[in-house]
């Protein structure tokens, strides 16, 4: 056996970190994405700039490399004295970027709901929350869920960059073990296989949902 008990422990530790980063970052991204979408759709009269701020945020965040955001945030947190650790920064950074992408996905999904649906909901005098919860969102979900899950796969790949600010995640585990002298090829086959095991089921799920949710 090429790997010792300690090596396996390192892998376990690393996979756990990768999973936590993906999930926590993903959840933050969903929350942020919803908030951003609400901002972009807002017609609140006393906060006219909200829509613009939201749109600008999305445009900007999607054009910056993740690693630049990560470095910037890490050292900003350090400068401000925020004690959230490398994991915290990584999750925050993933959340910030994911929000932008997910907002686009959510808005795209909402746009697939025809104006007549909105009209019907209004004509029935349904209050705002009911319009969204019972009419718009259930239908928008068809176009939101598959790409959103597909995007989760992207988070998992982004977590690899967290290694650069000190998080011991899966990619870093591979680097550590290779540097220790273990043969690189088997090490990275394991690393890539583990990533695959995490990502591929989600890819399949996304495709399956797309087929199932598609309108005839």
């Amino acid at each position, binding site marked *: 056996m090429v790997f010792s008990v300690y090596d396996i422990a390192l892998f376990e530790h690393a996979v756990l970190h990768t999973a936590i980063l993906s999930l926590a970052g993903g959840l933050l991204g969903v929350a942020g994405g919803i908030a951003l979408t609400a901002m972009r759709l807002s017609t609140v009269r006393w906060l006219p700039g909200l829509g613009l701020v939201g749109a600008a945020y999305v445009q900007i965040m999607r054009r910056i490399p993740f690693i630049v955001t990560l470095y910037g945030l890490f050292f900003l947190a350090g400068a401000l004295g925020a004690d959230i650790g490398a994991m915290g920064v990584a999750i925050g950074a993933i959340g910030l970027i994911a929000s932008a992408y997910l907002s686009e996905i959510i808005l795209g999904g909402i746009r697939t709901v025809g104006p007549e649906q909105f*009209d*019907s909901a209004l*004509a*029935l*005098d*349904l*209050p705002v929350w*009911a319009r969204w919860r*019972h009419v718009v969102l259930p239908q928008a979900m068809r176009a939101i869920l598959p790409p959103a899950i597909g995007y989760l796969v992207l988070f998992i790949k982004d977590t690899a960059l967290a290694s650069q600010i000190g998080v011991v995640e899966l990619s870093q585990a591979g680097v550590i073990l290779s540097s220790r002298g273990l043969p690189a090829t088997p090490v990275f086959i394991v690393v890539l296989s583990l990533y695959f095991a995490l990502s591929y089921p989600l890819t399949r799920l996304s495709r399956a949902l797309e087929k199932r949710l598609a309108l005839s």
Partner: protein
Amino acid sequence: MPYLDVSNVSVRQGRKEILGNVGFQAGRGEIVSLIGPSGSGKTTMLRALIGLQGAQSGTVTVDGRWIDLSAPNAAASLRHKAAIVFQNFGLFDHMSVLRNLTLAPTLVHKRPGDEAEKEARTLLKRLGIEDKAKLSPRELSGGQKQRVAIARALMQRPALLLLDEPTSALDPARVREVGHLMQDLAAEGMTIIQVSHAMQAVRSLSSRIILLQEGRVIHAADSADAATPDHPIARFMNSQDAQDNMA
């Protein structure tokens, strides 16, 4: 005091006047048809009556209730009194026919669930589609979907029923059916306003015909008067017939 009195409705978009000083009246249980060339504003008028289109001015008095269309709460007041059936029905695909009918009554009017369901089933039965209650609208034909849409509107217990091009999506047999339905409802006291370009149906169903052009009422008449050969409304309708036949 007529049952329905619409007066001085004007709608502007920017500098463009879509409706100017539009008004008409109707008695209880009458069928009023709004006709006119495309762009005349008839659909806008219908939408204004359900609050989907804001108006700069106008008042609607229906069943004793007076509503100022330019007031901020006009939409809510209108939706208490009127219900609309859209040209493409606007049914919610992702829920059953029954739920389409009970959604608003239970959520907005706070009617108890089983009561609403009973009422919905009765309506569906009356319209001959009771067996479709648990199906999704996607599984229904055009005529069936329209009946669901009408049932959904009737669940609102409106004083005023608005129909946008009720015959355009149907084949001839269904057109006759929905015509009969409209007459039945009118006989029971429902006041119906329809926008239509199907002159045949307009002639046979309406008690009053309102001709719009470029956002203004050009002519309004009882159907008997409008049928006399030289009446401007009759002439318009004949020209529409000719156009439709050429198409």
